[in-house]
């Protein structure tokens, strides 16, 4: 058994220290060490986007990042985007548009969409589809997901302008 490494990171705004083995992915660390199971595993090789998190402002597949690489980084997971006692506009719009069926891909989609809107507050439908092409959903046909993201973008733009 390999020696464990102590890693300090900021996860969802909180300073966290954890021990991980050198081979463990950030996804394993989140789910098995820190028990943040909102981040899902669909393929473990970067194909499906269910494990997406935001790392220092960049959207990543957490299954393709090593846990030790999180040293000194800021990480946002699905557990960390809602305000206290409420929902993020993307979360609210996913519910209003029925943009989820089974819901297993939903955390990854919401994180990816947040990363998109952080970069580009007013995406076109094509831009949303292009950005979300790294997230697989097998239930919805994407129609309602795309509408939810476009609607959330509108709501967030109004909130910013207030």
């Amino acid at each position, binding site marked *: 058994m390999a020696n464990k490494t102590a890693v300090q990171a900021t996860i969802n705004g909180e300073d966290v220290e954890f021990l991980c083995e050198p081979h463990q992915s950030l996804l394993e660390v989140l789910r098995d060490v820190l028990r943040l199971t909102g981040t899902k595993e669909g393929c473990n*090789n970067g194909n499906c986007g269910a494990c997406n998190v935001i790392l220092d402002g960049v959207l990543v597949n957490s299954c393709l990042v090593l846990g030790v690489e999180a040293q000194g980084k800021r990480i946002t997971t699905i557990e960390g985007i809602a305000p206290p006692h409420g929902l993020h506009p993307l979360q609210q719009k996913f519910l209003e548009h029925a943009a989820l069926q089974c*819901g297993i891909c939903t955390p990854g989609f919401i994180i990816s969409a947040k990363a998109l809107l952080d970069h580009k507050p007013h995406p076109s439908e094509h831009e949303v589809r292009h950005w979300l092409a790294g997230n697989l959903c097998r239930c919805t046909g994407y129609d*309602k997901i795309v509408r939810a993201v476009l609607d959330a973008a509108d709501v967030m733009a109004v909130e910013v302008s207030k």
Partner: protein
Amino acid sequence: METPVAEQAKATEVSVEERHYNIIGTRPIRHDGADKVTGKALYGADVRLNGMLYGKVLRSPHAHARILSIDVSRALALPGVKAVVTSADLATLDSVVSRVGEGAVNWRYLSNNILASDKVLYHGHAVAAVAATSLNAANEALNLIDVQYEPLPCVITAVQAMRPGAPILLQELRTNELGARGEIPTNIASHDQNMRGDLERGFAEAAVIVEREFTTGIVHQGYIEPHTATAVWGTDDQITIWTSTQGAHDARRQVAEVLQLPVSRIKVIPMEIGGGFGGKTVIYLEPVAALLSWKSGNRPVQVTMSRFEVFAGTGPTSSSVIKVKMGSASDGRITAAQVTMAYAAGAFPGSPVGGAMSVILNAYRMENVQIDGYDVVTNTPRVAAYRAPGGTNAAFASESVIDELACKLGIDPLEMRRINGAKEGDRRVDGPLIRRIGYLETVEKARASAHYQSPLPAPSTPGLKVGRGVASGWWGNWPGGTSSVSVIVNNDGTVNLIEGSTDIGGSRVAMAMQLAETLGLQAADIKPMVVDTDSVGYNDVTAGSRTTYSTGIAVHKAGLSIIQQMRERAAQLWDVESASVDYADGVISSKDNHIGFKELARKVGDGDGNVVASISISPNGDGVALATHIVDVEVDEETGKVQILRYTAVQDVGTAIHPAYVEGQIQGGAAQGIGWALNEEYVYDQQGRLLNGSLLDYSIPTALDLPMIEAVIVEVPNPTHPFGVRGVGEVPIVPPAGAVANAIANATGVRMTVLPMSPQHVLEALWTQGNERV
């Protein structure tokens, strides 16, 4: 599932008049939604128990081989490894066929699929499993299990498996030939036939005859959540299993059979499920996790598949070869149809060829027809149900031929379907009389749609070809199965709805809405919950488009019981006869007395006996669903790439309880059908090894591959459901492949006869048929 004629006759008729609903037809937020958008919802692989071990499964590298020996000693000696299991730990079960999930299974074969006994029958077939203190140790231990194989020749397609002299998978298998048992070892498990009328006369009446042979590849359901099971075999010999399943009770029954234990020893706790589409109606890991727990000294064991294991080790749906010969009179009337279809079941019998034999022509009036279906075993994973099992391949074949007949006759393809479309009183090819259905309504709605009325779009790039295609689909919903619910009125006026039907895509809210409608409450007043197998009566799987229909009937009946009890409570309160107490829209009244549901619930309180109801039903009505789809495609004849430009799916849904989730089913089914049509298939090498067992190489549609999918809801209420519900989940996957093929023919003049219509197959068709374009 099909409805036997006898059962249909005794189905209860409920009159559904034009009704105004308060809750049904609205779009409330789903009750489980907040947990699912915040990451709090717990799915199977999210279970974390103290002292939990990690299990992994060793799988066959061969498509077909005899197992000579298995030596697990080195694996067991590895630090951290706590247990190893093989098929030696499973009892040899009797060869008995029983209904499981949506289909039938032979218990011995189910057990042999979970852990191979004397032979491995496909690349990925489970051979052994280990439990260790870490995932890493478990994976390392797999490499230390020494399995000696004697490789055997393999057969991958039904055509290969049916050839004389083909390698035999199951030495004891004999063909069930129209009910008679064959005498020689074979890979053909069964041959069934539906027929009516006089084929020869029908073809003689035809002005045009089209005959084609279609082949389709193996496709997987492609749910994003891999299979997972966590089990604790308690020191009291009670077994608890946490799993993602389409039916907790059915999973319990399967585990009980495989482990030869009474069901009362097993509790299945259903976790949230990350998609199933039929694929999670059969078990793979649950008994393995339970045995590993037992052998490791009662420690919790979690076994989760990798994505490759999901592709290689769990049931996809059948590849198939389908011959269709159809004749039509010059007025468009189909005069005769002959179909021969062989579906590959994978390692053990049980392909959905029976469903396919129904689907293929049931949308149409057929006077002279013969359909022959063969169920064939092959060295590929044992198939599991996949959304309208067998339907997409079948409709690809029949809808292509009907389209070609219409083209040859110069008849509009939707008019062709109107001329031949089935309606109430017609007799299905497979026997039963057709009740009120909305097929012709879907055709008319499609014809009147903005999509169909609009001209074809111009190509995005000069030189590309655009075309439009239509196709219809029929699917018979499972007429019932058992559903059980319990309802408890809380003293704050809310109502707990306790169910056992897996919520795979919003059924909690659909059940809550039906109860709210019955009681005259709001959807938010109902608290729906899916509980474990010890805590509610038996529920069949969430499959066969049955849940909103069957469990909905149970919910309605439970609601009626609550209403009756509330009337009695009010009668006691007012000291009047309960017969004089009315209940309407959540208000209980008698002469001058009125009281709202919530106020009465508060008055009843907890001290005077709760108002509760438990209902278990097994309805036997029918809920045939029909759909008509329209698609515009753009074909690049240089590369063979097909792009979907526009898609409209029209469906008779009976009554849409929650229209947003009904649309979601239609859109999702269409998207899966488009993936099947354009991209998806298992690719094997000569030795029968799966080459594309990843989500990158087995590419399912992404957001960028699809346009918005317009779902058009047609409501022709189902007379056998109190609110007119039809199952909506399955039929939307039936038409897409046929519609896309017809659009490609419209664009290029070339008829596709192979699924998927990938660039490679489209180019092959363009090159070989290029000279015969129509």
